[in-house]
């Protein structure tokens, strides 16, 4: 590998972004553009018995007002399916405005199209709706007694019970020590900076172009095609820059197709941008949930049994739960294990991915319980984890494709200064602040799409290269990292390579979700580029005018765009010389990577890390301020040190946010979220950001994908909240078993 892989290259799109030259989907200027606004149901449950659009229809600038009475029916009933699969990826198995039934507040009941956003919004406020309300349930506690065990969750991809191991009940019964703890989690919303936006343009041949803010352009294309009953060939999706997602744009929600339908109706391009308030009702959320952990251990802290049960609120259409149990199940070598999901239905949109989907809550529960165990038996929390280290996957007995967790603990403890920690809670004061430290394990599965992933590399006669794959850039730095992967594969300097993504015209890659984006895209990019390199080397050695004529291709290396003999670098020529001499305008290859899925291998694939936190608690006023965070992770190969660092740091900050700030609060009387704004839904501001130290442990992984990339997208958030809660206990002696931890918990 050349040094370009992993280098801290500045973002290739950085200048365009900070100067505003980068155009986001909601910023394109199109002639004749009209603006659509959704009108959402005000009640969470009932029927629409009257909807009067007369005033709205005649308001200034209004083109049309569509309701269930006149919106064309969609061609298919959508079915929820995670976008990582690479197929249609509807957010829920329900499409609104097909009849008069209201299932959740905010459900779209009308679309207003006008010449400006302001006029469309105003006309939207003039739509008069009469509801026959029916009783609703919007909190877990209201329907807890009706909970059921789903067969499968997560679009059918995950069983409702995790595979059992051994005999957990007798494991618990016989254990020297048991803990039985319940953790509660507020609902969370993703809240990316850019609100979801779609611009739909139909042409004369009934072909549709969608400029969409999405994590997966192909997911948008296939999902909208299905709902419109069109072949995918008639739909093009363009998504160059996306202003963050955090799961809000991972699946395809109804507003995208509604925009296309509205544009068809008014015969001109239509843009629909959700308002901030609508972002809380239109693209899912992390569900309100409760998790119960039972641990059985011996006096030395060795786990004998672990059970982990979750109950959460889902919609009336889907058995959705974020997958909170999978990582905790394999983090420690507990011989006896059981875990399962229970769901209760409420009047809500189907919940969905929200940063660290599942692990952020599941590992909070496990790692909080482990801290209680360490405290109860009086051993150091790091030592407790080392004693229970899973040398192989406890579930399947397979070895790990790579791990590095012991090294993460060790390095993290060093960086943090963990050694010599006084375990007694509530004993360190600095003025009015009580000081405490805590740690937790981070774990996140290595996921991969189930479909082939493709990329294309084209070299021009001057030796410069365009590499293409249909990904969108939603802030992760993918364009930059893929430029590096391509340059490395071809033996070119990065400024000779241009990586292009952002449309469905390009070779298809699944949506970048579940930390799988770098693996899924780097693999075909790497294959395309190395194939192109090999093809040109073969051509050179076969070319009697080439200095490399007759050489063994395996003896040829490429540096700075010049092919030469490994042992005699003075013998060689550049790609450009080869192509120019032979009058070849360009050469192109497509790389196809068939992802490796865990059941097909002899290995278990997971990413691990260790989190450490120091907090100061002003218990008198109930304030928690995080002073330091240290995170050490083993995410396989790092493609770009700088963007990887940013991803991990962002993840840790979201963990802080989950621990202390984030909660969407449901009012069961109105059935609506009561704090649907960024003034009321709190996320950290700069002043909340502590000193953050991040390091990575290099673990070569020849199994997961060609470059050994395990992904840095989600692992950073996992465990942070537990480390903070454990530090709060260390500071104050108080165990808070719910998130977020706020003033009223500590007074």
């Amino acid at each position, binding site marked *: 590998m050349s040094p370009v892989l992993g280098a801290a290259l500045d973002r290739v799109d950085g200048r365009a972004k900070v100067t505003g030259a980068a155009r986001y989907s909601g910023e394109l200027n199109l002639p004749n553009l009209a603006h659509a606004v959704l009108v959402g149901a005000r009640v969470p449950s009932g029927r629409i018995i009257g909807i009067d659009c007369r005033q709205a229809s005649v308001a*200034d600038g209004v083109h049309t007002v569509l309701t269930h009475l006149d919106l064309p029916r969609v061609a298919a009933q959508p079915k929820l399916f995670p976008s990582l699969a690479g197929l249609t990826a509807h957010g829920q198995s329900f499409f609104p405005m097909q009849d008069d039934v209201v299932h959740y507040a905010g459900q779209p009941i009308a679309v207003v199209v006008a010449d400006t956003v302001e006029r469309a919004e105003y006309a939207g406020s003039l739509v008069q709706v009469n509801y026959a309300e029916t009783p609703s349930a919007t909190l877990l506690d209201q329907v807890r007694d009706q909970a059921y065990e789903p067969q499968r969750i997560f679009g059918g991809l995950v069983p409702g019970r995790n595979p059992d191991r051994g005999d957990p009940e007798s494991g618990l019964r016989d254990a020297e020590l048991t803990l039985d703890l319940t953790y509660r989690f507020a609902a969370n919303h993703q809240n990316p900076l850019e609100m979801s936006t779609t611009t739909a343009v139909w042409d004369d041949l009934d072909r549709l172009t969608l400029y969409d803010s999405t994590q997966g352009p192909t997911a948008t294309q296939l999902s909208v095609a299905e709902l419109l009953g069109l072949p995918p060939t008639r739909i093009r999706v363009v998504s160059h820059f996306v202003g963050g997602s955090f799961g809000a744009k991972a699946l395809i929600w109804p507003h995208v197709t509604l925009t296309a339908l509205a544009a068809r109706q008014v015969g001109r391009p239509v843009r629909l941008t959700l308002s901030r308030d609508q972002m809380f009702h239109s693209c899912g959320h992390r569900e309100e949930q409760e998790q119960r952990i039972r641990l059985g251990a011996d006096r030395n802290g060795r786990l004998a049994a672990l059970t982990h049960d979750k109950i959460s609120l889902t919609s009336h259409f889907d058995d959705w739960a974020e997958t909170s149990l999978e990582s905790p199940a394999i983090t420690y070598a507990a011989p006896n294990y059981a875990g399962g999901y229970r769901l209760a239905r409420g009047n809500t949109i189907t919940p969905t991915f929200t940063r660290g989907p599942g692990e952020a809550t599941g590992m909070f529960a496990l790692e909080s319980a482990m801290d209680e165990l360490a405290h109860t038996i009086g051993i150091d929390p790091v030592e407790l984890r080392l004693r229970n280290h899973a040398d192989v996957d406890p579930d399947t007995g397979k070895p790990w494709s790579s791990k590095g967790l012991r090294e993460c603990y060790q390095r993290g403890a060093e960086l943090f200064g963990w050694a010599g920690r006084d375990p007694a809670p509530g004993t360190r004061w600095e003025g009015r602040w009580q000081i405490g430290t805590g740690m937790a394990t981070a774990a996140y599965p290595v996921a991969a799409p189930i479909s082939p992933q493709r990329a294309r590399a084209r070299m021009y006669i001057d030796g410069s290269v365009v590499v293409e794959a249909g990904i969108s850039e939603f802030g992760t730095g993918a364009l930059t990292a893929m430029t590096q992967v391509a340059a490395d594969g071809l033996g070119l300097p990065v400024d000779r390579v241009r990586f292009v993504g952002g449309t469905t015209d390009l070779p298809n890659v699944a949506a970048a979700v579940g930390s799988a984006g770098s693996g899924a895209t780097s693999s075909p990019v790497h294959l395309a580029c190395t194939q192109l390199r090999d093809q040109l080397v073969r051509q050179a050695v076969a070319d009697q005018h080439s200095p490399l004529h007759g050489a063994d291709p395996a003896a040829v290396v490429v540096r700075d765009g010049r092919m030469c003999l490994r042992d005699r670098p003075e013998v060689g020529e550049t790609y450009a010389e080869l192509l120019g001499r032979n009058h070849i305008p360009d050469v192109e290859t497509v790389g196809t990577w068939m992802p490796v899925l865990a059941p097909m291998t002899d290995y278990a694939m997971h990413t691990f890390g260790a989190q450490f936190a120091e907090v100061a608690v002003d218990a008198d006023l109930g304030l928690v301020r995080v002073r330091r965070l240290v995170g050490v992770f083993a995410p396989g190969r790092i493609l770009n040190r700088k963007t990887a660092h940013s991803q991990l740091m962002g993840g840790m900050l979201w963990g802080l946010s989950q621990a*202390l700030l984030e909660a969407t609060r449901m009012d069961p009387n109105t059935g609506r979220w009561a704090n649907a704004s960024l003034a009321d839904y709190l996320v950290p501001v700069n002043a909340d950001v502590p000193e953050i130290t991040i390091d990575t442990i290099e673990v070569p992984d020849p199994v997961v994908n060609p470059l050994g990339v395990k992904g840095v997208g989600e692992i950073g958030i996992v465990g942070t909240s537990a480390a903070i809660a454990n530090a709060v206990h260390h500071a104050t002696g108080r165990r808070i078993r719910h998130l977020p931890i706020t003033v009223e918990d500590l007074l």
Partner: protein
Amino acid sequence: MRPVSYSRVADVATAIGTVTADPGSTFLAGGTNEVDLQRIHVARSRRLVDINDLPLRQIEELPGGGVRIGAVARMSDVAQALPVRRRFPVISQALLLGASPQLRNMASIGGNMMQRTRCGYFRDVAAACNKREPGTGCSALTGVNRGHAVLGTSEHCIATHPADLAVALVALDAVVLTQGPAGHRQILADDFFLLPGDTPDREHAISHGELVVAVEVPPLPMASTSIYLKVRDRESYEFALASAAVAVAIDAGVVTDVRLALGGLATKPWRARQAESVLVGAPATIESFRAAADAELAGAVPHGMNAYKIELGRRTIVRALSTVTGDARMVSDDGNPP
């Protein structure tokens, strides 16, 4: 957004005249509250009269130690002004702990005094709210009311008054100078803000078309060491869960004079007169501070999620008093918190 017309005026008389002539019109200063509320259809003016060109930007020292602040002076300018920082640090701190730098650069002092509550139901036109639509009920009474008031509430409204600056002004006995169709008025800050009672839609003691032209803060030597304490979930950019503006004079360990007002806890910026009367003449000790806090919160009424604010309010008072009297650590001899 509703269709709205806009005009810009250059002198006070035209401003008042234009707004008075049309009941559907209102003043527009920085717009950080008014435009926001227009966009969510809570404010329903059809004409906005921009007063930013009015010659009301000065921040002047008054003879004897007071200051006069023009109504369209920006929050950020007032916070930085030397006379304010020197004579009334509590004002500067209250401003700097509010909103964000960008908002403070836009927002005016008059607009700040007139800003509406942040109650989520007030801002949600689909919800019942007596303040927005009298007679429809109060959704917050049994709803999500973690941020709501425990003091000065009525059965009709429990919305917290959101402002920070106003808390400092109420403590300092500032006077609001207005000018309207009926002429000039001087209103004590404490009287400028109204309790909700059974007319929660009326928040200020001024009428339509009456313009705030300035705020005058009278001299108060002990205010030179005054402070503003703001307690909130995140470190910045959030309204107060509880706050206190306080100035104290102490002689030989005894409180001789004190000004205390509370934010985040009440339906208006809350002058803590009960606490003040306990404190005057009492020794400046934690025990006195606690007694004062207990007295002030004795009449507090919780509504579910906001019950914690009663204890938080007490502790905020104690902390503010301890800080201003130099005993910020409040750690007793054995090293533990009292």
